[in-house]
C-alpha cells in the first residue's frame, strides 16, 4: 500500500533517517519500534509531508507522494496523530472533529453566502459523523467542552476521532499508548483493532511492548536512523540485534 525506498533526512550533520526502505501491506497494523532518537518520528514526518526527504521515494498505492505537502498527503488518504497530542484547545471537541472531514463545501467562503442550505445540510452530516467518532472513542459526554479540559490520554483519543472522521485508508499513530493509563490504553487498543478489522491500515510508533506484541504484525525496528530489521513480533523480541540496539553493545 505504502512503499518507501531509500528515504533519507539530514539535519545539518545528523542523518536522522538514513536510506530507509519498507513496504506496508494493506490492512495490516505495522509496529515501528526503536530506542529514542532512532528516527521514528522523523520518518512519520517524512511520510505525512511535515518534512521533505533529502532523498528517496514514497508511493501510496503506486502514486508518488514524495515531498507532498501535509494537506495533500491527508487528501490522498493518510491521517496522522502526534506524539504530543495537538488538539485545538479553545475549540469544542465536536468542532475539533467537525474540522477534519475532507471536501467540505462550507470551507469555500462564498458558498456560505450563496448556498446556506447546502452548507446546513452538509454540517448536519458532518456533525453526525463527528458525534459517531466521539462516541466511538468514548468522549461524547465532553462534546461541548473545549479540548483544553482533556487529560493527556483523552487528547490521544480525540486525535484518533479527529483523524478517523476523514476516513483515511492509512493512519500513522505516534505513541498512542504513551502517558495513557492502563484502562484507557486497553480501550485505545480495542479501537485500533476494531478499525483494522474494517479495513484501515495502521503504522504505529510505540514503546509499550504489550501493545506492540498484541497488535502489530509485522514490526519494523529502527536504530540510528536505519531500518534494523522487519519481522513478526516474536522474532523481533528474540533477535539479539534488537536487544543490542536498545541496551547498547554488550562488552
Amino acid at each position, binding site marked *: 500500500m505504502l512503499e518507501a525506498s531509500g528515504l533519507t533526512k539530514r539535519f545539518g550533520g545528523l542523518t536522522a533517517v538514513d536510506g530507509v526502505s519498507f513496504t506496508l501491506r494493506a490492512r495490516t497494523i505495522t509496529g515501528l519500534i526503536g530506542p529514542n532518537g532512532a528516527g521514528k518520528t522523523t520518518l512519520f514526518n517524512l511520510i*505525512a509531508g*511535515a518534512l521533505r526527504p533529502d532523498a528517496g521515494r514514497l508511493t501510496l498505492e503506486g502514486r508518488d507522494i514524495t515531498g507532498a*505537502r*501535509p*494537506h495533500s498527503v*491527508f*487528501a490522498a488518504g493518510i*491521517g*496522522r496523530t*502526534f506524539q504530543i497530542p*495537538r*488538539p*485545538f*484547545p*479553545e*475549540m*469544542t471537541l*465536536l*468542532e475539533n472533529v*467537525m*474540522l*477534519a472531514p*475532507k471536501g*467540505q*463545501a*462550507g*470551507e*469555500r*467562503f462564498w458558498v*456560505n*453566502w450563496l448556498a*446556506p442550505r447546502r*452548507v*446546513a445540510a*452538509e*454540517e*448536519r452530516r*458532518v*456533525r453526525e459523523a463527528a458525534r459517531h467518532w466521539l462516541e466511538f472513542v468514548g468522549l461524547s459526554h465532553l462534546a461541548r467542552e*473545549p479540548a483544553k479540559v482533556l487529560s493527556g490520554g483523552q487528547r490521544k483519543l480525540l486525535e484518533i476521532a*479527529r*483523524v478517523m472522521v*476523514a476516513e483515511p485508508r492509512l493512519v500513522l499513530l505516534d505513541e498512542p499508548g504513551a502517558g495513557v493509563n492502563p484502562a484507557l490504553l486497553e480501550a485505545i487498543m480495542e479501537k485500533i483493532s476494531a478499525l483494522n478489522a474494517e479495513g484501515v491500515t495502521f503504522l504505529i510508533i510505540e514503546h509499550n511492548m504489550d501493545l506492540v506484541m498484541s497488535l502489530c504484525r509485522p514490526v519494523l525496528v529502527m536504530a540510528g536512523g536505519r531500518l534494523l530489521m522487519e519481522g513478526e513480533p516474536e522474532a523481533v523480541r528474540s533477535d539479539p540485534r534488537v536487544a543490542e540496539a536498545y541496551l547498547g553493545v554488550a562488552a
Partner: protein
Amino acid sequence: MESALSYLAFFLVFASIFAIATLGLNLQWGATGLFNVGVAGFFSVGAYASAILTTPPDPERLGGFALPVAVGWLGAVVASGIVAWAVGAAALRLRHDYLAITTFGVAVVIQLVALNAQWITGGPFGRQSIPRPLVAEIGAGLLWNLFYLAVVLAILAALYWAFETLVRSPWGRVLRAIREDEGAAESLGKRAMAFRLQAFVLGCMAMGLAGALYAHFVGFVAPEDFLPILTFQIWVMLIIGGSGNNRGAILGAYAVWAIWSVSGGLLREIVPQAEQARAAALQVVLIGVLLAAILLLRPRGLIGEERVVSRHAGQG
C-alpha cells in the same frame, strides 16, 4: 435643532464608515490573527479607485470615467482586493511581526504614490468633484446627509451579516483551527496559506469599500486624509470595542469616533486660536491614554470575544 441633527448625521456617517473598516480589520486580526498595520493604505486605494472611476473626465489625469457611483464602489472593492492579494501572496508567508512591517511599508508606499503620481491621484491637491450620489435629486443639506447615512448603515448591516456568517461557518472554523495550531490544521488537510490569504483579502476589501464611501461623502480625497493616524484609529476602535467580536468592532468604532469628535470640539472651544494646531495633538494623547486604560482594565475590550462555535456545531 436642524444643525444638531445635521451634525449627528455627519458624525454617524463617519463612525459607520470607520465601523466598516474595523469589521475588515476584525476579520484579519480578530478571526485570523493577521497583524495588518496598513489599514490606511487599503482604505485609500478604495477611495482613489472610486474617485477615478466616477469623476468627470479630466484631461490632465487618468480618467475620470464618469461611471455611476455604484460602479465606483464595486471598483474600490476590486482594486483594494487586488492590492491585498498581491501584498498577501508575498507577505503572508512571513511570520506575524514581518507581516506587520510589510503592511506598514505598503501603506507608506501607497501614500507616497498618492502624493507623487499626479496623473493618477492629483498629487497633494488630491482628486476633486467626486460625485455625491443622487445629490441632484435630493438636494444638498440635511436630507442628503440622512440619505447617505441610510446607505452607509445598510452597507454596514449587510457586511456585518456577511462576516458574521463567515466566522460561524466551516470556513471560520478552519481559520480558528489555523490560529490555534497551524501545523495540526495542515495535518488535517487544510491549506493554511490559502485561508489566511482569503481572510486578508476580504478584510482589505472592506477597508477599500470604507474608503470609497468616505470619498463620496466628503467629495474630494487627498493624501493627508490617509496618514498612519487613520490606521491607528481603526486599530484603537477594534481593541477598545473588543477584538474577535464583530459587534464589538462596530461599537468600538462609534465609541472611539465619539470621543475623538467630542474632544476635538472641546479643544476648539477651550484653546485659544493661536494654540489650536498644537492642541490637536492632545486628541491623540487622549486616545492613547484611553487605549492604555482599556488594556489595563478591560483587556478584552468593551464586548470581548466570545467562544465562537460554528453555527451548526452549537445546535442539537
